[in-house]
């Protein structure tokens, strides 16, 4: 069994009356891409800040690489790379100077550092922007620089706190592919996000957070198995009578239906051929329908079923 890289035990963090982390525990193994998923304000960043010893907490223990984490645990910090939610680079330093500066906080040997900086520039694809100042970079390139500054020293544990916020799809894909590449090179990754698609795409294990608590943990398949929904069938259809909806609701494995006048949504739990059975009912009643599509459950469904609310707001 792989070694624990991060072990958080019963962490409690209060801001006055507000409990930001409520007896939160985690055990992240070496080589994992561990996702912390939760809506804004669920406690993801607070967990990261406590883990990095930036934030004081009220109760609990944090171990990194088997040692107690503290602000002066410099030997542990040397092995950690951090990419914060907010871009943290010097506006007055060029791309390569920024990476060299932050890398220099970890590596003193100039020759080794030069190589690391070069590798980092290539890794994030900023070869053509070495002499650029951050303000001349697009949002996506700036995020890439932010990542390069955090990983140039080749850390064993990389913590990425919402690194794709406000990033265009192309840069987002680039970043996600990069994270998977870093993982393949041996780094353990902790990835926080409220974008469930990203977490589903790259994380090998996921903890879902809400109101400072861990409400579920496992692989994405394990998480999806925790809920009743296994398939959602959507049919664009007009003038469906109550009787037809009742007939569909009575089909095996169908546990709920919803109709908004234009689209019929049928929620199924387990079973196979749910779509065929539903379409059979419609054809029997000579109902014409438009687009038909079936959706497998997402982490949002998991979150919805456990908490009774959507994982993220519509504007996200």
């Amino acid at each position, binding site marked *: 069994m792989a070694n624990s890289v991060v072990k958080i035990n019963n962490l409690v963090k209060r*801001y006055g009356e507000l409990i930001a982390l409520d007896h939160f525990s985690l055990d992240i193994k070496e080589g994992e891409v561990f996702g912390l998923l939760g809506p804004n304000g669920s406690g993801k960043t607070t967990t990261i*800040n406590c883990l*990095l*010893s*930036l*934030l*004081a907490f009220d109760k609990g223990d944090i171990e990194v690489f088997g040692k107690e984490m*503290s*602000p*002066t645990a*410099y*030997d542990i*910090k*040397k092995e*950690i790379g*951090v990419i*914060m939610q*907010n*871009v*943290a*680079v*010097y506006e*007055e*330093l060029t791309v390569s*100077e920024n990476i060299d*500066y*932050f890398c*220099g*906080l*970890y590596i*003193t040997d100039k020759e080794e550092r030069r190589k690391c900086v070069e590798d980092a520039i290539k890794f994030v694809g900023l070869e053509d922007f070495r002499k650029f100042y951050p303000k001349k970079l697009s949002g996506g390139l700036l995020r890439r620089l932010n990542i390069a*500054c*955090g990983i140039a020293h080749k850390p064993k544990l990389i913590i990425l706190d919402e690194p794709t916020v406000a990033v265009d799809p192309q840069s987002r894909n680039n970043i996600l592919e990069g994270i998977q590449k870093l993982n393949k090179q041996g780094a353990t990754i902790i990835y926080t996000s409220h974008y469930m698609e990203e977490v589903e795409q790259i994380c090998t294990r996921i903890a879902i957070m809400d109101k400072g608590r861990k409400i579920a943990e496992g692989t994405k398949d394990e998480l999806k198995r925790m809920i009743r929904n296994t398939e959602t069938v959507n049919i664009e259809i007009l003038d469906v009578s109550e009787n037809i909806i009742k007939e569909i609701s009575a089909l095996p494995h169908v546990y709920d239906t919803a109709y908004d006048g234009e689209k019929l949504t049928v929620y199924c739990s387990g079973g196979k051929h749910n779509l065929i059975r539903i379409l059979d009912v419609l054809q029997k009643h000579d109902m014409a329908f438009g687009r038909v599509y079936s959706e497998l459950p997402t982490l949002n469904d998991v979150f919805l079923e456990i908490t009774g609310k959507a994982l993220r707001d519509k504007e996200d």
Partner: protein
Amino acid sequence: MFFHDLKYMLISGFRVKSFLFWLMLFPILLGTLFKVAFGNVYENDVLFRSIPTAVVETTSDPVFHQVIDSIEESDEPLLDVEYTDEENAMKLLKEGKVSGIIYVGDKLSLSVTEQKMDQVILKTFVEQYGVNEKIIKETAEKDPSKIQSVVDKLSEDVSACRDIPVTHGDPDIYVQYFYNLIAMVAMYGSVTGLHITVQNQANLSALGARKNCSPTPKSVSMLADLTGSFIMQSACMILCVTFTHFVLKIDFGDRLLLVYAAAILGGILGVSFGFFFGAVNRFSLEAKIGIVMAVSMFSCFLSGLMMGQMKGIIAEHIPWLNKINPATVVADSMFSLNMYSDYSRFISRIITMLVITVVCTAAGIIITRRKKYANL
């Protein structure tokens, strides 16, 4: 790690456009403006120069000759005398080549066409000569070797109406503006100091958070940044004093090295003040800059940057304020080098600057030494 941090602190610091403008270009522009605005007044009315004077002798007076010769032999002769006839003297006066005509007869008399400072001095000279004529003549007859000391006394009395400095430079309010300008540059250093705390505190900036996650101890990073800021600020102070003295030709006296030293210490004080202010509150960076600039400018206002008499007004009503107001202390340290021949006041101001610097730096370090934060 220290030198790595210091290197990038200096590289990034000298590339900050607002730093280059406010601490290097703005003082040069303002200093030039002061020079243009007050320079003519200074040169016409304040700067010492010999007064061109025509002397018309209706009767020969060897004692007067002796007095004039003695005056002209001094380092800074009060009068630049041209003996001539009345017609030529009138011509010179009309053309403005002389400030007045002294007629030497039974008694001295004066003819002028204006009533400016030169004419007031000539009038005082003629009056003083009249009052002291008897003493001068007796001295010339009995002990000619003492005539110089009598002439010196006469010159001194005449010069007194003009506030000629008895020390090394010009204590005039005009020069005071330049001392205050240097103090202003020193106080602007507070913005540089403020950035040190912001960039090293995890609860104040993303950069601070990133640096706090690194294995470089915070003390090393802060020390490197403080050193870098002191170096940058010192460079600004040296530039400001050099430009003011050597380009604008402002006379800071003959203790220029000490003026540089005082200015550099003032700059370090400014950085420390900003460092402390940045650490002591959790306002946004913009708010911090706004407040620290306002405090710095108010400090400069109280020292007389915008209104020359302010320092005097404060001295009259709240004298203790002048002793602790950073801008006043910085300006006064340089002023005292010009004003007083001994160093007691200068040393007192330097000690005050050192105390403020040490207190601000120590307090800033104590506040920022915290390793974990309650909020981010």
